[in-house]
């Protein structure tokens, strides 16, 4: 294996690690959304304490769906770090 190939591989590996980190910044979105849902849920419980069980259930379900984009970013990061699909391009 010549030096250029090794250099190319290290650059690709470094870029994959950076890309995984950047992909995980997508966690901002779900975090804000889930926090917003939790805040609204707290407000709703404050207004209607008797409906607490229903509100909690609906809030958790909504938060789980909002989490989907964050899960996708985790998927991208895991593939970049564990499978290294781009290393094959260097040859």
């Amino acid at each position: 294996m010549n030096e250029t190939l090794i250099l190319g591989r290290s650059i690709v590996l470094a870029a994959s690690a950076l890309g995984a980190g950047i992909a995980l910044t997508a966690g901002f979105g779900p975090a804000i959304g889930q926090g917003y849902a939790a805040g609204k849920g707290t407000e709703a419980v404050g207004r209607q304490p008797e409906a607490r069980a229903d509100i909690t259930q609906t809030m958790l379900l909504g938060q789980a769906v909002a989490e989907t984009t964050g899960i996708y970013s985790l998927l991208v990061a895991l593939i970049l770090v564990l499978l290294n699909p781009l290393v094959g391009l260097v040859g």
Partner: protein
Amino acid sequence: MGNLEINGPRILFRVFGYPITETITNQWLVMVLIIALAYWVTRNLQKTPKGKQHIAELWVSTVQSLVQQAMGAKNMWFAPYIVALIPFIFFSNVLGLVGLRPPTADLNTTLALSMLTVFMFHYYSIKFNGIVAYLKGYLDPFALFLPINIIGELSRPVSLSFRLFGNLFGGSVIMSLVYFLLPVFLRVAVPIPFHIYFDIFSGGIQTFIFAMLTMVFIANAVGD
């Protein structure tokens, strides 16, 4: 300091060339646990419950009211699946407490569970609404939405399985980081809050979410 290793489940042995991983043996453990529990609480059932029978009846009636809330009274036939699904996922999730690798931190397990949900969704969709209405659903609201609807259907098992897997795998990675960073004499007491959050709280919430999403999907498939 030793090396921090983050990897998949170890292959313990092979049967006819098929790898048997930690995931599978830990699942056997969970199955044995659930079967033993079910056997134990259903001995000597009586008309007026006492002792352990209270636990069994409380569990069944809790799930029944949950199904009734989420799916409506006419879909009560779906309750037995949820009664069995929740203990399996929950006991799998909290297996990290005893130092074993949770079976749900393996994509194979969660993908299998979500494929069950997705196949049931399509099966009941066809069974209750007929094949014509099922196929027409892909053209909703009009024909141009066909590719989007197909992508939507395909992303259902992906998001369902990766939600459970991502949470459990992320939790186990963070737990191994905690154990790695702490000096040996602190590894006794300090990780307890992390275990409470990542194993018990997160595991319980994710179990509930998976069961709720399954119920909502099936209720959508059955329709009004």
